[in-house]
């Protein structure tokens, strides 16, 4: 933590392989084709296809148990860790099939970061929480590089001012909202291209929620974000595109404004007006 890195987050930008320079906002880099998910005998996702635009926020909404979180976990293959879970269909990122046997899931998860429902910082210091990912992926070589990356990640997550004087204290000692931003900073530190957020605010109070939402808004400029949320207001506030799921099927997918103002499907309308869900 030195004064020079304080003024230049360039240090991190040099290390972190951030998204390619192309700034075409609507360009689609992630596409899902006919994705199905089974939990044992039970089918949870029925042939979902969608293209997720780059550098924008896409919200998944739908009633509990509709499969939106399950579908989200397909993008970094977190479903692999669940016993008896099978994923079918095709998901590509930059044209690369993420189920390609040649692709290591570790590499995929470095590119596609994830923030979970409940803040889950490691029971380590704040510093080590951030530094862990870059270290295991070999993104940092020296202490100075690590320091710079920790600082820039915490700054991007808007947490630097609150924790800069106690980086050696356990991350679990922070408040819920701070913990969640720490988890976001931890995800950012590995330089992902995509960030998956699984109801990131459901365990937070309204003030912490609004801080995290502001953060999502800022992160959109650098990262492709997919967020699962229970709150339709949140989807309306943070996202550019919204997908509505019901009973494992993608019912409607479009511009957020269009979904909320002028839904094409009856079920979508029923959900956003509070009649199902």
């Amino acid at each position, binding site marked *: 933590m030195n004064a020079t890195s304080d003024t230049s987050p360039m240090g991190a930008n040099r290390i972190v392989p951030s998204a390619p320079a192309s700034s075409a906002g609507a360009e689609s880099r992630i596409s899902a084709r006919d994705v199905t998910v089974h939990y044992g005998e039970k089918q949870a996702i029925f042939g979902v296809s969608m293209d997720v635009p780059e550098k924008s926020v896409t919200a998944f909404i739908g009633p509990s148990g509709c499969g939106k979180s399950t579908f989200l976990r397909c993008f970094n293959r977190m479903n692999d860790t669940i016993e008896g879970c099978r994923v079918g269909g095709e998901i590509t990122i930059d044209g690369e099939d993420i189920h390609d046997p040649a692709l290591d899931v*570790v590499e*995929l*998860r*470095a590119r596609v970061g*994830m923030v*979970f429902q409940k803040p889950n910082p490691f029971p380590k210091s704040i510093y080590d929480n951030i530094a862990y990912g870059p270290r295991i992926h070999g993104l940092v070589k020296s202490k100075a590089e690590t320091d710079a990356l920790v600082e820039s990640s915490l700054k991007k997550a808007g947490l630097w001012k609150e924790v800069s004087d106690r980086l050696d204290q356990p991350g679990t000692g922070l408040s819920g909202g701070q913990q969640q931003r720490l*988890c976001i900073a931890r995800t950012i530190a590995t330089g992902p291209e995509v960030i998956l957020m699984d109801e990131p605010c459901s365990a937070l109070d309204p003030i912490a929620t609004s801080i995290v939402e502001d953060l999502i808004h800022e992160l959109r400029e650098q990262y492709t974000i997919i967020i699962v949320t229970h709150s339709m207001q949140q989807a309306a506030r943070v996202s550019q595109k919204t997908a509505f799921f019901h009973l494992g099927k993608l019912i409607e997918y479009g511009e957020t404004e269009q979904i909320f103002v002028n839904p094409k499907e009856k079920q979508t309308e029923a959900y956003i007006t509070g009649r199902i869900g």
Partner: protein
Amino acid sequence: MTEILETEAEANTRRRAQVRNSLSRRNRAEQRFKLLGLGSVLAAMAFVAVLFGNILTNGLPAFWQYNVDAEVYFDPEVINVPDVPVHQAGQSEADFQAEMLGWQRRLAMVNWNRILVASVEGALAEAGADTEIDARSAQSIIDSGARFVLRDMVLADPAIIGERREMQLLLSADGDNWAKGKLSRDLPDDRQQLSRPARDAIDRLEEAGIVHRAFAWHIFTNVDSRSSPASAGLAGAFVGSFYMMLVVILLAVPIGVSSAIYLEEFAPKNPFTDLIEVNINNLAAVPSIVFGLLGAAVFINIFHLPLSAPVVGGLVLTLMTLPTVIIATRSALRAVPPSLRQAALGIGASKTQMVFHHVLPVTYPGILTASILGVAQALGETAPLLLIGMNAFVANVPATPMDQSAALPVQIYLWQGNENRNFFEERTFAAIIVLLALMIVLNALAIWLRGRLERKA
């Protein structure tokens, strides 16, 4: 209308009364249960108190034994040996060794008892006692191990011959019993273990303060002995048990923890791993003596490892401890919240990194406690050791785990079976105290380490 209101008010009153009634019933039930629980805790504590009280009152006296302060004269007439051989110029090494051995053999054949008898007579004279004591009675007062003490002193420094030394000579087992008042003074002579002159001599010497109690360090430094029970100690058993613990720690902990990690984190869930799991759980319930049979059959009959050796004992105890360590480690791993695993995987940690960087560190306290408790359990295990020959009388401190050795719990078993009940009962309790103290130290260590690691995590 008013009527209905009244009924409602009445109904409310009735409901409140009902709730109050049931409340007092519930409170009584709670009170009963609390008392019952408190009663069981108190009963358990009372049992423990009785147990410890019994062990301590019986065992502690054994740590203080009676000694005679006597002047020992290394009489050259009795120690009738030539001068120590010196390596002559031109003499071969083998010849010198042979000559030295011959000298040592001469030394071993010296009638050391005569020196001891003279010392007792001297002590009696010093006490101003007019009692005459025959050689046999005088000899029966002193622990026969004193002979070897004197011999070793001469071996270490032959110049001592002809000199006088003030020494504390340990009383024999019978003498100690008499001095401690454990032998009835009312019994007729023919039923006493010590002759009348011997008993009188002890009494006189004690009155004069020449026979007195001292802390029996030799319990910790001597090995077991049958010929001189008063100087029998636990050193051999202690070292034997230490070697076994070493084997258990070096084998059971790494093997147990690794198998638990593999089974819990990496192994596929299929009928085969289910079978392994069931078997591990069953192994934890197998009587320990069966492990002893297994050890005798496999380690001794097939692998021809030595009988009575701590290495075999350690292997058998390892087999016995493994299921405990595996089960405890697995439950510690299972208690790790899934959110921590997700956090590690989500950031791109491989499964191995997840386990070793995140899951294991938070389970260290649990694994450590399980290991120490497993080792403590193994330390106190007796039955399997009997089947691999560790109940043999071994009067040696094992130099390596391959040497024959005693073990602490087996030593307790052997001492409690000793025919000299009057003396060895106390000794047995003393050995139990040593074993329990070791256990308490190990458990305290587990608690302390657990607290330390938990604070760190």
